[in-house]
């Protein structure tokens, strides 16, 4: 999964929106430091997050999983543009190694 979105605010403001995890679901909390933990609720599902990398106003990555969803890694990159900020978001599954061994079988 890879998406890019252009938002009309500067990177400073965009970063503040990105690190408030409520946009990832209905509600949430996140301790935005490497190794920091948090949660996001969406409907009756709750995802649990662990922050991996934080580079203020540029990059945030975290792992997340729920009881019904396999773990995946989300990476978010911010870049200033003439109009505001470009936010690039990617999500990749974490069981890549398990899939590779199945293919090699």
């Amino acid at each position, binding site marked *: 999964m890879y998406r890019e979105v252009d938002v009309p*605010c500067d990177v400073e403001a965009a970063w503040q929106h990105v690190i408030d995890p409520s*946009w990832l679901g209905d509600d949430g909390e996140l301790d935005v430091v490497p190794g920091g933990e948090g949660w996001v609720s969406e409907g009756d599902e709750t995802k649990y997050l662990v922050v991996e990398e934080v580079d203020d106003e540029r990059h945030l990555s975290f792992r997340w999983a729920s009881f019904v969803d396999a773990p995946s890694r989300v990476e978010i990159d911010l870049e200033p543009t003439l109009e505001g900020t470009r936010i690039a978001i990617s999500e990749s599954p974490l069981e890549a190694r398990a899939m590779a061994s*199945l293919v090699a079988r």
Partner: protein
Amino acid sequence: MKDTISDVFAALADTTRRGIYEQLLDNTNGKTATALAGDATVSRQAIVKHLQVLARSGLVVARREGREVRYFVTPNGTSGASSWLLKRAEAWERRIAKLEDQSRATPRRRGIP
């Protein structure tokens, strides 16, 4: 619990296997490994191995008819994987729309070159 979705993606991650699966999709009467090998550049033995991976993932099923084994696509074999993809895509559409809304609510700072 068997992780069928991973098995389906792994099975279809190989171009040869995807080609075999496409051929079986086009043949409602199924095909034998020998017939599949006849159209391919790989050996019958390799085709059989690929068919076994496809069968383990639940995408195809082998059926003995007289002296030959024919392979057929399983109805709705990809439905678990495709609904997984769709659910994820929809969730990100919702999240990005929310992020855009929140960002639009913040006025752009003036005086920045």
